[in-house]
């Protein structure tokens, strides 16, 4: 079977499992999986930005928060039906992402990381400050979502399926973006901006566009994330959240679509910003895993999966546009993958 068919089959299995899932777990677990899916959408967005277009952002939590509040304000204060809150969140974040993407054009690597770090740190404070809109430290509540009678589902199951549908749509959207001209341009930009420019790629348009789309994804994720809980406060969006997103794309695999799932599962079920006692040990493991992944599995889980599946006879599919050289974050224009990277490091 060709690798493309294999991949579709794998996705089909995943989808099937996802559909069956809520009937086998209690409502608390189902809620967690719902949140994991919402996180996956945000992680996907960040991956578009970092993995594909090579712009480092440590502040993705800010867009997540923006989307969450935009949606919550629409639902609670403007009486918008909760499903409409999603595109509103997406649109608001897209504009914000574009606005941030413009100055980001002038910043490189570390500096962009610094600025976005600052945005992430400032986010809880800004939420508190805008308490007219956001309810400040008191937070905001949204009405609990109930399942419609015709579905025959429990509330948590209904929300799960709504989230599943949205997630699937976003993943398909991302896949289309990445496989087409846009994806190729992004990878070209990431690997060698100068070369990309000479090939006629309009850097500014693609980079700011990616920021906007990536922010929109995060916003939708944020909006979805708060639906099961029904409550949001500045504390829900700490710096750790932005770090968690970054960790998720590293663990899942940069520049991969499927990796977002693994990453999201990782950060949902190894909670850093949860209870006190858990937090400490979980954080140690979390940080340690991040570092180890950079040494051993720079391509994340998906990188490992690819390496294993490529050992079989079928030639590697051109998943996500780049052939194989994505085993290291940021890709490698010379194409020799992690071996060359280690070589370079040793030579230093």
């Amino acid at each position, binding site marked *: 079977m060709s690798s493309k068919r294999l991949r579709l089959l794998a996705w089909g299995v995943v989808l099937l499992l996802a559909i069956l899932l809520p009937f086998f777990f209690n409502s608390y677990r189902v809620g967690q999986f719902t949140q994991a899916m919402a996180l996956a959408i945000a992680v996907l967005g960040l991956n578009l930005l*970092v993995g594909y277009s*090579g712009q*480092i952002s*440590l502040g993705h939590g800010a867009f997540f928060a923006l989307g969450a509040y935009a949606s919550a304000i629409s639902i609670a204060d403007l009486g918008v039906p909760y499903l409409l809150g999603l595109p509103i969140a997406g649109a608001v974040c897209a504009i914000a992402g574009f606005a941030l993407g413009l*100055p980001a054009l*002038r*910043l*490189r*690597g*570390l*500096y962009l*990381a*610094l*600025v976005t*770090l*600052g*945005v992430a*740190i*400032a986010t809880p*404070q*800004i939420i*508190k*400050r805008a308490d007219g809109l956001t309810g400040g430290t008191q937070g905001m509540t949204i009405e609990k979502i109930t399942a419609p009678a015709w579905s025959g589902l429990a509330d948590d199951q209904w929300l799960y399926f709504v989230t599943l549908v949205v997630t699937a749509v976003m993943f398909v959207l991302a896949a289309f973006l990445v496989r087409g001209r846009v994806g190729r341009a992004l990878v070209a930009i990431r690997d060698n901006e100068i070369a990309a420019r000479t090939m006629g790629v309009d850097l500014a348009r693609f980079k700011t566009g990616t920021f906007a789309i990536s922010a929109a994804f995060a916003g939708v994720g944020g909006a979805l994330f708060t639906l099961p809980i029904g409550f949001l406060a500045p504390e829900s969006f700490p*710096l*750790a959240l932005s*770090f968690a997103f*970054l*960790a998720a794309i*590293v663990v899942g695999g*940069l520049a991969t679509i499927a990796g977002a799932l693994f990453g999201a599962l990782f950060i949902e079920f190894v909670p*850093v910003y949860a209870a*006190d006692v858990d*937090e*400490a*040990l*979980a*954080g*140690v493991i*979390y*940080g*340690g*895993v*991040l*570092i180890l992944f*950079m*040494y051993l599995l*720079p391509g994340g889980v998906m990188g490992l999966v690819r390496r294993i599946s490529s050992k079989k006879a079928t030639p590697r599919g051109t998943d996500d546009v780049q052939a194989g050289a994505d085993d*290291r*974050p*940021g890709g490698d224009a010379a194409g020799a993958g992690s071996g060359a*990277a280690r070589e*370079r*490091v040793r*030579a*230093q």
Partner: protein
Amino acid sequence: MDRFIQVLVDGWATGSLYGALAVAVVLIYRATGIVNFAQGELAMFSTFIAWGLMQAGLPLGLALLATLLLSLFGGMLIERIIIRPVEGGEVLTLVIVTLGLYILVNSLAGWIWGFGNRAFPSLFGDGSFDVAGATIPLESLGIVAVLIALVAILFAVFQRTKVGLAMRAVAMNPESSRLHGISVGRTLMIGWGVAALVGALAGALIAPRLFLDVNFMGAVLIYSFAAATLGGFDSPLGALIGGWIVGIAEGLAGTYVDFIGSDLKILVPLTVILVVLLFRPTGLFGSAEVARA
């Protein structure tokens, strides 16, 4: 007018604290070209060690000395074991490794010492005196004095000693340095060790003001980055002066700009970073190399 002077004086002292951590950040950047996002957490960890030593009975001075030494070795160890495997690699890899270190050290401290906060004694006691209607705590003067001395010592080391020359050479051109017999690995290790030592000192200076808890260096970090960016990422003197400017700006903005008040003061360092990076990336004292990053 009184208030203004008080704000200035307080801002100057606070700014020195930001400058202290900024010097550590700049040291590592200068020696290794890496921005260490975990610098604050390492400083926090060292400060906790000092606290622990004092709980065990050591007087403040001795505890601090021991901590400085331990931090020196700790920093060297971290470079050797954690950073070395990814040195010279992609920016993103380094960012993630230092972030992982941030999370790890932060949680490790929480695991060992818990998440509550505790008091930390000042090196300079509680005295103060009045000048022109403003109260100047002895501590503030002490902090500024220590920092100026620190920067002077670092300057002497960088400019006059062989080790300092090696660190500068390695930061500029590691391959050429090797050809001249400089052990790049060893030099980087020393750079990280000294930076950790400076960070520990910064932590001990800052802790008396903000309570000592696992997250006390978190916000300070972004202020320090602003100071380092303003000063030019490879100049310790720039870090200090940048710190002063950021500290005073923060004080003034917090007091006189209503919108900022006391919650949004974090916008000050953010704005500083943005403005500097967009209009003068080399900062006030940085060399042209910095902008290339």
